[in-house]
Every structure is written in C-alpha cells, then in structure tokens.
C-alpha cells in the first residue's frame, strides 16, 4: 500500500520535470536557425506562400499561446502534426518507440547478465589474474566506439558465422529477441565494463565493513556472507550507475540503431532535427523525457526491493 502511494507521489513529482523539458525544447528550437517550410520546399516558395503555410500550422501565434496549446493537446495524447511527414506525431512516435524500448531492454539485460558474474568473481579475488583480465577486457570494450563494435559483431556473428540476423527488428516477440541480440551486445560492450567496475568497487567496500567480520565470527559461511550481506549492500550504488547510463542510452543509442538499421526513435530524432520539424522534435523530447523518468522510477522502486529500509521510511 505504501509502495503504491509512493509510486503515485513520484509520478506527480515528475510533472514539473516533463513541463520543464518541453518548455526548454520549445524555446531552444525557436533559436535554432533554419526554417522547416523552406528546407522542405528547397527554397522554391515565396515569402507570402511560406507565411500562408505558417498561418495554417498556427506557427505565427504568440509563443506562449503555441506552447499552451501544445501542453493542452499533449495532455489528451495529441502531439500535433509532423510538418514534413504529414502524419500525427503521436503515430510516428508510437511506431518507432517499440524497437528503441526493445533495444534498451535487451542492452540492459545482457549488460547485467555479463557484468554480475564477472564483478562477483573479480571482487572475490581482488588483484588476481582474473581480476586484472576482466579490467583489461573492460577497458578494451569501453575504448572501442559502439559503431565499430557493432560492425565487428555483424561481420563475425552475422556474415562469417551466419548465426544471427544483422539488421532490422524482426517479426513476433521471438523475432525481436533474435534481432536484438547483436545490438544488445553492442550496448553491453561498453555498459557492462562500467557496471563491473562500479559493482567490483562497491563489493570491496562492502566486504570491508565491520558487520562482515561479525558475520564471520558468528560462523556464517563465506559464500553466504558474500552473496547475502556484501552483494546486497553493494547493489545500491551500481543501480544508480545503471539508471544513469540507461537514461543516457535512450537518445544515445542512435548510432547503434543506424548500424543495425533499427527503425527506432533515434533515427526519427536525427531526421526531425535535420528538417527542423518542430512538432516532431517537441513530441520526441516529451517522449524521451517520459522514458527517462520511467527508468528512474523503476530504479527508485528497485532501491526499495534491494534495501527495504527505503520502503519502511516512506511517509
């Protein structure tokens, strides 16, 4: 019950964030040089015709009125019409959001699955050969640019071995899973090393705590001390690191989307900015903000699962 109230309160608290993000985007695009109508028509229209189009789109109203009507419409799920693509922004976004969410999900899942055992083994024997090998491999993966890793994976697993599809989103949920393995791995190549470093350091910190020695003194087996007491204490900082990085990936995965020809939000964003498609940019900014806020809400709720004191302390 407390958790439910907590979620509701948190959702209420995200409203100012969403308004802030959209307001900032709205003002920012006004100051960017370039004009969508002239870009689209390659400058072949006269000033009067351009004015007429603006009049029809409602873009020559006062800024406050424009922003106000955007907010009112957004609240009802209407994000306006794309200038360039002649379709509702909401439909365009809805079509592209699924591949992006799959990519984020798969990338996060693979990163955690790879990072967790590596960090656990590395921190169990700090300064061992394994520990150093994990760190060196992590540096290598982290240092290579994602598009390069993506290409390497495509060449190796797609073209040479022929095991996995190399582009597109696939059909059906199993098709999506198979198609997301290589893009997800590309994300894992730089996200997993970050997680390993964070979790390894937190584990070593946690193992140095007094209560670990007390647990040893009361006879608790070492594996249990490690997995129950040290890991539980070490997970919180790593969760934060994970949430920050996945939030960044929401828009940062554009490169990966384009390497694997994924019809995601990233490519839509790049195109909309190129054409100064104001309504689409505005709508995408709102959707990105909603996704980031949702990721952080999930992270906050996970804190409560890992450290139940968080839930206990709720008002």
């Amino acid at each position: 019950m407390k958790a439910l109230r907590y979620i509701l309160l948190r959702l209420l608290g995200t409203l100012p964030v969403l308004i802030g993000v959209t307001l900032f985007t709205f003002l920012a695009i006004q100051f960017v040089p370039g004009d969508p109508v002239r870009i689209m028509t390659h400058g072949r229209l006269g000033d009067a015709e351009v004015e007429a189009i603006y009049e029809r789109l409602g873009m020559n109203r006062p800024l406050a009125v424009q922003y106000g009507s955007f907010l009112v419409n957004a609240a009802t799920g209407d994000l306006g019409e794309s200038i360039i693509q002649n379709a509702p922004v909401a439909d365009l976004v809805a079509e592209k959001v699924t591949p992006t969410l799959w990519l984020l999900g798969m990338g996060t899942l693979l990163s955690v699955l790879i990072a967790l055992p590596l960090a656990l083994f590395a921190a169990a024997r700090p300064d061992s050969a394994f520990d150093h090998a994990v760190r060196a491999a992590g540096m290598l993966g982290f240092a290579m640019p994602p598009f390069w890793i993506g290409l390497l994976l495509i060449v190796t697993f797609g073209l040479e071995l022929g095991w996995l599809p190399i582009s597109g989103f696939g059909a059906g949920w199993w098709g999506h899973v198979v198609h997301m393995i290589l893009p997800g791995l590309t994300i894992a190549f730089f996200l997993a090393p970050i997680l390993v470093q964070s979790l390894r350091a937190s584990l070593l910190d946690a193992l140095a705590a007094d209560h670990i020695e007390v647990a040893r003194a009361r006879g608790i087996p070492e594996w249990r001390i490690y997995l129950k007491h040290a890991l539980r204490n070490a997970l919180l900082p790593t969760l934060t690191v994970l949430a920050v990085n996945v939030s960044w990936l929401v828009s940062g995965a554009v490169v990966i989307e384009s390497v694997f020809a994924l019809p995601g939000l990233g490519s839509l964003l790049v195109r909309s900015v190129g054409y100064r498609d104001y309504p689409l940019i505005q709508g995408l900014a709102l959707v990105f903000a909603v996704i980031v806020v949702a990721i952080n809400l999930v992270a906050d709720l996970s804190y409560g699962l890992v450290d139940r004191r968080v839930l206990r302390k709720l008002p």
Partner: protein
Amino acid sequence: MNGASPLLEIEDLSVVFHTRSGPVLANDGVSLTLRAGETLGIVGESGSGKSVFCRAILGLAKGEVRARRMAFDGRDIAAMSRSEKQALRGRGIAMVFQSPMSSLDPVWTIGDQLVETVRHHKGLDRAGARRAAIALLDRVGIQSAARRLDDYPHQWSGGMLQRAVIALALAGEPRLMLADEPTTALDVTIQDQILALLTELQRETGMALVLVSHDLGVIAETVDRVAVMYAGRIVETASVRHLFERPAHPYTVGLLGSMVGAAGQGERLRPIPGQPPDLHHLGTGCAFAPRCSRAGDDCHRAVPRIDPAAAHDAACLFPMEAER
C-alpha cells in the same frame, strides 16, 4: 595442570602484519591458558595487540599467525581445516565487538540476522528459528522482543544493538565468549548494564569469558583473572585481587597509578611517562624498558618468559615485589 585439560591453550602466539613499511609484530610470544567457565580480562592500551589476539584465536586475524600450540578443548586449531575453523566460530568460540552500531548488516532486519545465525547453528526451520531468535532477544533483555524482531539496526540504540550482538554470539551456545571492548562505544550508564548482562550470562551458561578492555575498572568488576598486555606481549598475569594489591610489573603499577580513583582525594593522576613503542622496531629486550624507572642494562637485552600456568607471574627482571 590439575586433571582436566584447559579449554583454551595458547603457547607462543605471534601475529605479524607485513606492511609497506616493514613487518609489524602485533602479538609476540603470547601464551595463555583458560579453564572452562573461567573469566579472564585482558587489559592494555590501544595498539597493545588485544584485539589482534582475539581475532587470531577465531582465525580472523589479517596478518601471519604462528603459534607453538593453539588448542581449543584439546583440539589443535592450527591443524584444523577451513571448514572446521568455521564450524568453531559461533559454536565453540563466539565474539562480541567494540562498535555495536556497525556490527549488524544495515540492510537486513535484526530478526533476519538472528534467524540466519540460529538456522546455521541449529538447522531449525524458519518458524522454529524465529521463536529461538525471540527467545534470544528476550534473554539479553530486549523488551517486547517479538515486536521488535523485524526492526532494522538503525532503529535501535547502541546499548540495544550491543544486546542484539550478544544474542547473536549466544545463538551457537559457545563455550568461550570473547568480548572485545564491548562497552567502549557506549554511554557510561549503559556500560554497566552490558557488563552486568555479560556476567549474568556467563554464570548462567558456564561459558568462559575473555573480556578485553583498556579500562582496568571495567575488568576489575567483571572477571577473576587478568592478563596485562603491552606492545603485543603479556607482561603480567594475576588474579584481580593480586594485581590490584601486589602488582609486580612496573607497567602494571603505572597503569594502576593512572586510574581514576587510584590517586587519593586532591592528588593528581600519575600518567606513565613516554609513549607506547613503535611496533616496527621492537628489539629483543623489554618493550617497556625505555619508559621504566627500574630498568637496568639487562632489560634492553632480554625479557623473561611468562609462565601461563602460574597464578601470578610478571615478565620482568626487576619486579616490584618478590613473588615466586
């Protein structure tokens, strides 16, 4: 040795920490015997090796541990396997630590940790372990234990937490309890309660108790026998009464003289002159010699060994009173 073998026999225990600035001899030739049910105090300044000694017995010392003999209940600890040593912890020998605030895992409830410990030692099911956990908290004087079992450590005061830590130590029904400065982090009023609880539990269960403290006053009211440690060595062992009435080692005399209450009304306390020695650079001689007014040339060369079985003995060439 009168008949029964002692509960704990330590002969010539040394613990060396290999640090960047060279080896540090934290314990040097410590010998000690303890009978079942006996209470022993170990007193000394901070850094004298008291805590290291306790951890070495439990197999938890970080440094290199060597001993001629280290036996618990007649079984050689040094020859034990890793899992045998682990089985000894909590069941044979339990330990209570200095800082109750950090002795419990903050992300698990006190009940979780008690149940975990009880299940490990007794193999009870969850419900049975929960009942046992409540009984343990009850026994260490926690009011309405059943209701407070699901509290987190940060919800309890230091004194209550130390009671919980003692309950954890009791869970395996140990035959020896090591208490390392158990009251140092607590308020003075709470200190007496915890000491009284330890004494009461020791009498009830008949377990042996080693109480480590820098405070001779704490030691005096709790235990029968005292070992005085200085710079990693035991310099004097005696019954509490003998130690206070006829201290033999000049360091013990200094320690007694610097106690509040030892000096008469209106008199100043008499601190021991000089500083505790640097454990990096200990010679073969008596570590206290540089601070000792009675020291002769021989003191800087060699130090007599203490007889762990003797009723009263001091590692001193020129003891205050002829004892033997």
